[in-house]
């Protein structure tokens, strides 16, 4: 007789996911699935709406990273309407994006991920979380809470709304940045950078050594990677070329509007999110952990792997250390957390760089746009991975068709492979306990759906 073990809901992640693990008669894992169980239908309900309204509707796909949907949508609408933005429009948008990355990475590492590493592994569920951290390490927790908050407050000052933002508008940005505002943001940005460097040092001392030892078998798989780089091969979050790296190291680059020629989508029975795979490799899709096919990963580790360099100094030093330890591409899933903190450093440095650019205080922030028929693909690197919004408009500039590929969707395939591998290595003869189930969840939390 076979048995199914269900973890539902997967906790300390954003959104609704479940894991079903199938055991055979001997109690060994024969299959495992991670699925997203909730369908909203954004592709449906944006149809008919004026395109310029979409950037402030699709934010509701995710309350943790609404800025990413806001910006990818704004870029797609710009493209539908043939808008070309004044430089300040792009700089302000990117500033918001990197600030949003900062809050997300602090949240993900300390609130969602770190309790697995900072609190004893056999601790009860009631303390193995941020509330437990507040009690066990009040000073650290207070600083973490304060810094995440600071990023959010900076966003509010700059853009009004931080959760479900409105300031990126078709053709640019809704308001210019004043000179004195810029100075105060700069000072806050320096505080964030100090914290980011502290967080990475702290994690290298207190967190990573034990997790690399203890959790070594968790979700180790071999896949390709997808991320965004500029023309010099430097890591980019806001714009650039998509770079897809095959597990054997070979890369192909493509512009976001060509995504359909490279990536393929497949509907599966167990998830409302379609599974995306690398169609251009011509090998189809297989989620078998022994030899996955078509499977690539996105998100922090992927970006750190595909880029040749990071253009900001401290993050580059960290990248070099990371590469010297783990090689390129690094395949271990738990390294997502390490890569996440390197990106945190990059995002903070980038905040200061953007604020240091004279053009960012230019009062001209928006080009007027004219609604028209067209098609536009907008993409950004979201904390959870490459995000693609693809819209078509009619002659009134209203949406006739939309296709969205969100970060989590790219990672559905590798998450399935990781979870199956983890489950197979932790579950023997049908024996499971809370710690084993939590380890399986950790394989999902590393990706951060």
């Amino acid at each position: 007789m076979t048995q199914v073990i269900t973890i539902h809901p997967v906790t300390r992640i954003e959104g609704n996911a479940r894991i079903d693990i199938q055991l055979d008669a001997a109690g060994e894992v024969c299959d495992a699935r991670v699925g997203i169980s909730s369908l909203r239908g954004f592709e449906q309900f944006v149809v008919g709406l004026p395109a310029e309204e979409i950037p402030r509707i699709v934010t509701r796909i995710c309350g943790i990273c609404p800025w990413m949907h806001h910006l990818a949508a704004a870029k797609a609408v710009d493209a539908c309407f043939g808008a070309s933005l004044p430089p300040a429009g792009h700089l302000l948008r990117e500033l918001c994006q990197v600030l949003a990355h900062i809050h997300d990475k602090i949240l993900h590492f300390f609130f969602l991920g770190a309790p697995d590493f900072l609190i004893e592994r056999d601790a009860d569920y009631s303390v193995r979380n941020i509330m437990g951290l507040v009690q066990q390490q009040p000073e650290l927790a207070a600083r973490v809470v304060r810094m995440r908050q600071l990023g959010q407050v900076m966003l509010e000052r700059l853009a009004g709304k931080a959760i479900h933002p409105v300031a990126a508008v078709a053709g640019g940005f809704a308001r210019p940045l004043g000179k004195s505002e810029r100075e105060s943001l700069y000072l806050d940005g320096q505080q964030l950078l100090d914290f980011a460097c502290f967080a990475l040092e702290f994690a290298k001392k207190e967190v990573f050594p034990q997790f690399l030892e203890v959790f070594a078998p968790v979700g180790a798989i071999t896949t390709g990677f997808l991320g965004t780089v500029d023309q010099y091969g430097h890591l980019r979050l806001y714009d650039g070329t998509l770079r897809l790296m095959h597990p054997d190291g070979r890369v192909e680059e493509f512009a976001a509007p060509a995504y359909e020629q490279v990536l393929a989508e497949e509907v599966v029975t167990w998830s409302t999110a379609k599974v995306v795979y690398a169609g251009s490799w011509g090998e189809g899709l297989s989620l078998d952990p022994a030899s996955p096919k078509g499977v690539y990963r996105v998100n922090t580790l992927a970006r750190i792997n595909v880029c040749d360099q990071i253009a900001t100094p401290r993050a580059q030093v960290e990248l070099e250390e990371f590469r010297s330890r783990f090689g390129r591409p690094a395949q271990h899933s738990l390294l997502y957390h390490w890569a996440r903190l390197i990106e945190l450093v990059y995002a903070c440095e980038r905040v200061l760089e953007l604020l240091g650019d004279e053009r960012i205080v230019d009062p001209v922030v928006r080009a007027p746009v004219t609604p028209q028929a067209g098609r536009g693909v907008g993409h950004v690197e979201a904390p959870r991975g490459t995000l693609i919004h693809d819209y078509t408009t009619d002659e009134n500039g209203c949406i006739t068709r939309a296709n969205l590929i969100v970060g989590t969707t790219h990672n559905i395939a590798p998450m399935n492979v990781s979870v199956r591998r983890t489950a197979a290595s932790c579950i023997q003869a049908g024996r499971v306990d809370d710690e084993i189930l939590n380890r399986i969840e950790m394989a999902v939390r590393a990706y951060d759906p």
Partner: protein
Amino acid sequence: MKGRRRPRLSFVWLQACSGCEISLLNSGERLPDLLNKVEIVYFPLLMDRKCGGEGEFDLPEADVGFVSGSVSSDEHLTLLYALRRRCRTLVSFGTCATHGGIPALRNRWSAEATLETVFPGTPGQPTLPAEVPALLDRVYSVDEKVRVDFCLPGCPPHPETIAAVIETLVTGEQPRLPGKSVCETCPTIRTGEMHRTVRRFLNNAEYNSEEPVERMRCLLEQGLLCMGPVTVGGCGGPATPLCVQARVPCRGCYGPVRSEGNQLLDMLNVLASHGVDHRSIVDRQSLLRFSGAHGLLRSVRKTEGVVLMSEKGNKKSS
């Protein structure tokens, strides 16, 4: 709830984006203190407790349950019933829960039409994920399905409001919510002179960027569709409404001023009483963008929906 025991709080999400929960985390300095005052017994974003597998949800008992998100699948419904059974006071947390929110925009179509669009298979034979919870015929707000003790609208609600509501609920008092409109909390200049038509937001409002928002002319008077008059205030806390701070018009995300109000009818009234031609609005149904539950947004019949979709682009809507 006054005894020595810390009040037990449960947070459950349905068709939600987690923005409501993130907003709670944004209460900043107050947060550690708040977390110490209560005992959180269930909160999937932050803690590991599992509530069940197939069909049944075994939620822990709680004094106050917060439910965010709207009700759109049979699984949401089961979870919501379980929560109602297990908590003494139930709070609808955020506009999705109180009025349907953005997910209820799907109510303009039937569930089948939505599935056909999201999973286009061969015509008439869409490939659907079969092993996921079934969609309900439409998206419901929480109070349409269970008794609700307290509604806290906002997409998301302001962190200070959430913190204040938790603090009062745990002392057993009845929290108070702002009943004013967004306009009443908005400092822009109003002259009573309105633009005769409503224009799309294709270029920025007129204002001097060197001057504070208090010196900007009301966006609605400038001819931009600003839903401030028919939307309940509080998004900016004691300060300027958040979108107006960004010099962007309000789209109504806190829901109607009176909880049973209708943002569409109320807004058309405001426009008509100022002599503004409401036909200049491109998409009137989006005045219900955040409050389409309670049967306010209704689906066109399935076949009509399909025709409308396939003919878009070569047929002007009449």
